[in-house]
């Protein structure tokens, strides 16, 4: 049997209470949401938190709703809810693309968007997804809320902008017309983490790419935000040739390392293939031309 080291456990009854506990207990305390990243690490004793603060009762953090020109997703919203949400699929179909290939139903029934983003593993599909759609993270502490963009949220491998005594409460995505999005992933087996993944969102106006977001998962120490590719694409008419150029940039701008999933050259190659594919599919969706 795999046994974690001993720890104290408390069940939060309010967001304020959870934050108060985090502040009182300091760096030895960790939030536990779905537990699908944290518990495996604890069982292998790679993580040894002294205190767990369980936020699973905080129903107020579980929602997907349209609020003005933004879509808001509560931090405790489960993968399965993201997968099933028609609202989300209508505005940002790449969430469903991603959720179809994240882990398995057992993990998706419990794992949360907040946990995925806070885990800050470069291979988390939702990190690339949120980056491509230019989402913002709402972080709350005793002193109130602050909002940071995805590029500032993921600071490094397993490190986020969430500070001591703070927690992530919400993810906000701006709603704009003419959008389409897609997520592409190559995995060794269903339910496995990506060898490489690419998320793309495009907003088309008058036959031109008005704005675009492209991000890569699993091919660098953190999610790779492809700003050079975005610059190339912005203002141009979409075409396969253009997307292939963006793919080349993806291949050059990622920084994968070799591991059991594959060598560096293969991962760079995939970055290119998947970026091209994600852009084509996102565009087809924006133009309502998806095959």
């Amino acid at each position: 049997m795999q046994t974690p080291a001993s720890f104290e456990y408390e069940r939060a009854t309010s967001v304020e209470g959870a934050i108060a506990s985090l502040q009182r207990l300091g760096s030895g305390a960790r939030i536990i949401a779905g537990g699908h990243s944290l518990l495996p690490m604890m069982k292998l004793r790679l993580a040894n938190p002294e205190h767990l603060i369980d936020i699973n009762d905080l129903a107020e953090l579980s929602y997907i709703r349209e609020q003005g020109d933004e879509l808001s997703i509560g931090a405790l919203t489960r993968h399965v809810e993201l997968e099933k949400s028609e609202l989300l699929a209508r505005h940002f179909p790449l969430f469903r693309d991603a959720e179809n290939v994240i882990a398995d139903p057992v993990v998706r029934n419990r794992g949360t968007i907040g946990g995925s983003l806070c885990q800050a593993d470069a291979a988390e599909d939702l990190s690339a997804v949120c980056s491509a759609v230019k989402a913002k993270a709402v972080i709350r502490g005793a002193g109130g809320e602050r909002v940071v963009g995805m590029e500032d949220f993921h600071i490094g491998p397993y490190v986020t902008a969430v500070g001591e005594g703070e927690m992530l409460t919400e993810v906000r995505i701006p709603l704009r017309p003419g959008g389409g999005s897609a997520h592409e992933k190559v995995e060794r087996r269903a339910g496995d983490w990506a060898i490489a993944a690419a998320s793309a969102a495009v907003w088309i106006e008058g036959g031109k790419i008005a704005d675009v977001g492209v991000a890569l998962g699993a091919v660098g120490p953190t999610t790779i935000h492809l700003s050079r590719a975005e610059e190339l694409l912005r203002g141009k008419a979409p075409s396969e040739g253009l997307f292939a150029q963006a793919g080349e940039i993806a291949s050059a701008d990622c920084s994968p390392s070799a591991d059991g999933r594959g060598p560096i050259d293969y991962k760079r190659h995939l970055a290119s293939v998947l970026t091209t594919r994600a852009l084509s599919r996102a565009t087809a969706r924006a133009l309502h031309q998806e095959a």
Partner: protein
Amino acid sequence: MATVENLPSAQTERPIGFGRLKRKEDARFIRGKGTYLDDIRLPGMVHGAMLRSPYAHARILSIDTSKALAHPNVAAVVTAKDLETLGLAWMPTISYDTQAVLAGDKVRFQGQEVAFVIATDEYSANDALQLIDVEYEPLPAIVNARKALDPDAPLIRDDKAGQRDNLASPTWEAGDQAATDRVFAEADTVVKRDIIYPRCHPAPLETCGMIADFNPETGQLDIYNGNQAPHAHRTVYAHVAGLAEHMIRIKCSDIGGGFGNKVPVYPGYVCAIAGSIVAGVPVKWVENRDENLISTGFARDYVMHSEMCAKNGKITGLRVDVIADHGAFDSTAQPTKFPAGFFHIVCGSYDLEASHVKVKAVYTNKAPGGVAYRCSFRITEAVYLVERMVDALALELKVDPIELRMRSFIAPEQFPYETTTGWTYDSGNYAETMRVAMDIAGYEDLRREQAEKRARGELMGIGVSFFTEGVGAGPRKHMDILGLAMNDGADLRVHPSGKAVVSISAQTQGQSHETTFAQIVAEELGIPPEDVEVRHGDTDRSPYGLGTYGSRSTPVSGAAVAVVSRKVRDKARLIAATMLETRPEDLAWEKGRWYVKGDLEKGAMIEEIAVRAYSGEPMPTGMEGGLDAQVIYDPPNLTYPYGAYIAVVDIDPDTGQVTVRRFIAVDDCGVRINPMVVDGQIHGGLAEGVGIALMEVLTFDEEGNCLNSSFLNYLIPTALECPDFELGETVTPCPHHPLGAKGVGESPNVGSPPAIVNAVIDALHQTHGVDHIDMPCTPARVWAAMQGRPEPPQ
């Protein structure tokens, strides 16, 4: 979905024997009511945990257990020093080598057992592992079998007197070298390949473990342990620990998969037993997943060089030269006289003129083991090699791979057929089975579809394999393990009410013994299978025998049950003759009943005969009361199941991802007792074959760190990687088995990997010039092959 044609009989109907029958064991399994080892809690039980080496090769300078011993819940910390005083620091392996129970001098693989902690609960036991200080001096490690015999390779087994290199056993040969040289000289076509069957792992969902419960008052040792050969293990414990064999009882609870992983005796078992003897309380030890993957019986790891030749378009000869990686200790489980197992069945299903096989075994700094994973003693490696070679030859000859096989098959009239390496195949009609597979597949249409797709830039491959296995070890004149004949017992008792208990020495880990063996008694005695209780897995309640592995249950134990049932039937005949006041020779048998020839009305049912056998009424002269019998079955030969498999794969030309779109499996395992159980065995084995071909592998870095110590990195396939398997059958009865049955459990695992790999190469040969790839065919490795860089696995 499989359909159930033949439901259990109602009391009034005629009982049934063979046929599709829902499994007796399902009632508890599908309700989550199975009892696995970790479900068992005994009063006063304490818990063990194993400290393992982080290094693949290192000298142990010191071990300090004082901090662990100071832990309030720790009862004991056992090291090699403590075991030495009991004479248990080393134990013999099944292959006449020795293995450290706990390492004292050196650690020889990552994950090797170093110290055993006993504590009141498993949390404390694991906490205490972190309190043990071991000082190591790291040594260079050997993980590549090809480098193990380099002159400057570090000596791994310096514990063995006279050992100067890393050779684990002398070179072993089969076949005729001179004749093979002649056949190659006369051949018109020769192909060569270096082929690796990488190290993989059976990875049963339930890991290994044991509860040892020694009673100091009575001297009785009760062992709870999911294990594939309980009787043989008991004998080993008696020898190793010097305990009285009749005072040891091994009880197997439900077993969550074995696949050969639960054949060996592991150091954790010896520590649990020693712990219980010393502490006088039950000691439970259950492995973690990572412990299972890095330290227990692995599979394969054969580095093979081979040449195959043809003359006039027909295969004529085969040469094979193998380096077998046995890890740090040679604990491969196989019959004594067969140090390379049954690998020399490598001449396959073909009528060769000559063949020659050489196998050299080496030590490396990797975990010991070697024949696990549904492998029937290295037949898996043999079939993989020969089926890859036939495809290589077909490429060279530019002939369809099925056509080449058809030309070279052993013909039906050649059986019994003596192979060039000394096996006597019992029966077969290979071409017919191949044709059934082609029909199900729609082979010609598939080839047409492939050509069309290729023209459109799509990659589709069709791969074939045809295997012959030799299973059901084995005849006592050839085969033993540690001096124990590979025979199996059966003990059948029909009670006065006509209900029966049959006790067998084979042990199920998912093979459905409780159902299949009841059906054999039902068939032979004509009583309903639900009236037959199958008892196994408890050495106190079953006869001696060697257990379940190597597809031997039906060939050996199944035969024993048939023979013992017939013995009971013969006794019933004599009793019936007395009851019916006639002579035994005047009686005829129909299922469940002896009746007077020519007078159908006058007869006695088995139930009536049973009543009589236990009653006060007279028995035939000289006969004892009761209706029971026992046998030990010694098979005259192995059984030789075979099959034709066809895989259809699609490959993403940009990413190298392989999808197995269709898989056609036509098995001939002789007479099928419960065809639904056979289908289930085939489904499971095919899924494993998909895993081995596409993703499963144990790899190591240069320092000998195992890179696949969890299911995050040791990938096993899911339903999503498996197509809807298309099964077919032909039935060629085994001429020497009482039921005409052959083994089948391992066939699908043996036969499927070469079909899939051949399909991958078939998809890539014309467009990318690929003529070889090693497993696993992961996206990255397939892509590398498409770039002209097929790399062997690490």
